[in-house]
């Protein structure tokens, strides 16, 4: 057991998989010699060499296309999309090419690619380098979508993603890279499609993802301490596949459901879960399902405005208290 940063967990995760399987290769902009703009791939080039860890030009279509072509003919590439906002310049591969390959070819081909990408706000980069695009990717049949919140989950879910035979987009949160957590020694392998109950509670269920997870946990402590509300906090971790059993099981226990989402409001991931809960857990609910999200705005660069936009612990507490006591 050792304390590891989220950033170093990325390095350890990729190392673990590259050591295990020679067919795992890694490419992206500035990922090799420079070690990545977020320093989340430092040392990989030195360890695994220039054949397996490759710098690319600023060519997001070529990066994802090359990853796909290599995957469908036998390799297991990890491709870095430096900022998730850049998905918009190569969305053809994310939406049209990779996820439809198995279906359109009647299973003749598969596409075991992991797209790692720096997602989310909190680092004052403004509207085109701060977005939470997990909901863009959740809507595509054939694509799997993961967003870890802790170092140990980075390793376990990355390992699961690399070993998965489908394309997986792996949203790393930029504001979490410096955060630390306990990580066991040895190989770590987790399962996609599994949510994690991080705090057990009986009064309400709070679903969160990535950066919103520590904020939801902080809110839950305040709810218990200051308001006598015992919240259950679930890290959804994987949007596709979605662990509805864990989520609906918790709703059956608590009778209240809140989502805390960094994505802008319209069609955020919580909307789909709210719909599922309304369909399948309506009679378990003791009150309305409430989504706590970033407002439907582009993100500002100014720190005080960005902080105002994203859900934080006081806002989560305030909303839940008003709804629960309303």
């Amino acid at each position: 057991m050792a304390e590891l940063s989220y950033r170093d967990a990325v390095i350890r995760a990729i190392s673990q998989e590259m050591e295990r399987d020679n067919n795992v290769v890694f490419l992206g902009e500035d990922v090799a010699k420079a070690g990545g703009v977020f320093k989340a791939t430092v040392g990989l080039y030195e360890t695994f060499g220039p054949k397996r860890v490759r710098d690319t030009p600023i060519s997001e279509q070529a990066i994802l296309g090359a990853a796909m072509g290599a995957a469908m003919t036998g390799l297991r590439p990890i491709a870095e999309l430096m900022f998730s906002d850049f998905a918009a310049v190569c969305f053809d591969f994310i939406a049209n090419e990779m996820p439809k390959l198995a279906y359109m070819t009647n299973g003749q081909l598969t596409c075991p690619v992991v797209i790692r990408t720096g997602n989310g706000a909190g680092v004052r980069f403004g509207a085109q380098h701060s977005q939470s695009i997990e909901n863009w990717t959740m809507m595509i049949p054939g694509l799997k979508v993961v967003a870890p919140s802790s170092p140990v989950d980075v390793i376990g879910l990355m390992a699961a993603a690399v070993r998965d035979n489908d394309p997986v987009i792996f949203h790393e949160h930029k504001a979490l890279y410096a955060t630390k957590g306990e990580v066991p020694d040895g190989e770590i392998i987790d399962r996609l499609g599994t949510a994690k109950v991080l705090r057990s509670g009986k009064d309400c269920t709070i679903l969160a993802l990535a950066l919103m997870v520590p904020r939801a946990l902080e809110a839950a402590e305040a709810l218990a301490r200051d308001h006598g509300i015992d919240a259950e906090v679930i890290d959804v971790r994987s949007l596709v596949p979605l662990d509805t059993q864990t989520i609906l099981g918790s709703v059956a226990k608590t009778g209240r459901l809140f989502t805390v989402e960094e994505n802008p409001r319209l069609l955020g991931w919580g909307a789909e879960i709210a719909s599922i809960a309304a369909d399948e857990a309506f009679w378990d609910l003791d009150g309305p399902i409430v989504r706590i999200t970033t407002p439907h705005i582009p993100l500002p660069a100014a720190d005080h405005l960005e902080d105002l936009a994203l859900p934080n612990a006081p806002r989560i507490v305030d909303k839940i208290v008003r709804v629960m006591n309303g």
Partner: protein
Amino acid sequence: MASNKQDGQSAGARSNDDIGVSTRLDLYRLQVEIRDCEKRAYDLFLQNLIKGTSHLSLGQEAVAAGFGVAMEKGDKSFCTYRGHAHTLARGAPMEGVLGELMLRDNGLMRGKGGSMHLTSVEHGVMGSYAIIGAHLCIACGSAWRAQYLGDKDVTVCFFGDGTTNIGAFHEALNFAVIWKLPVIFVCENNLYMEYTPIGDVTAVEHPAADRAAAYGLPRILIDGNDADVVYRTAEAAIAKARDGGGPSLIECLTYRHSGHSRADPAKYRPPGELETWLERDPIKIYKQRLAEFGITQEQIDAIDAESMRKVEEATAACKAAPQAPLDLLTADVYADGGWAWRN
């Protein structure tokens, strides 16, 4: 107009005279089979037996045939939505191709992909791609895998003139060159980007060849209606790629006899243009070529008859084939064969 000139480092260093009878017969046979199959596809449209869209290669058969003969088993093809010809040229069965166009259970993908996505992995056809430009990047990945694993196969990527104006074309070319990938980019310049003359929307006269210099590649511009020229050029580019010499970009001048797709009567073409190109029909050219090299009319007739026999046999099989069972709707969304996105 069609030109046989090759600039820069000529890809066709060997004389066409020594191609040999057996290879020539293969080149002819493939062109005729593609022509007959495409004509049949057109007829089946008119009978409303082919639904959706379809993009025929009538008039462009020499490119697919030249590469098909030059490629070896194990080599990989990446095609566009106008990909029936290139799929057949790798040995994929007519029944599978026509069955897919007719969206029947005997189609290459059992009707799940349709005419724009023909794929036959066992024949090295790694898919037909319908979003312009993407498959040039994907072809780079296939070639990267070969380079990484030390596999000796090469990847050939076919596309149209219109593709040269999308960003992915330029990303892929640069990428293939800097990584020295064993990939060959084959531009079929049929003069029209869908309904618009390619010259009206392109900064250079030859949309692929004139861009080669930007990526440090030799300018290769060939007569895409002469199967011998295509074959020799393909052979040289494939050998170069297989030997670690990196990518090639080849522009083949050709012409499609029909419209862009089934919906297009091609009325935008100036009067006389089609007729001029019909004089340079690749099959007409090749029949003369065969005669020049002493191949008898009986041999040619036998190939023609066998091709029509295959077309009739495939047509009958497709007409008799059912559509796929309904459970195919949700099959293979994910690699485990299923479609479950939740538990």
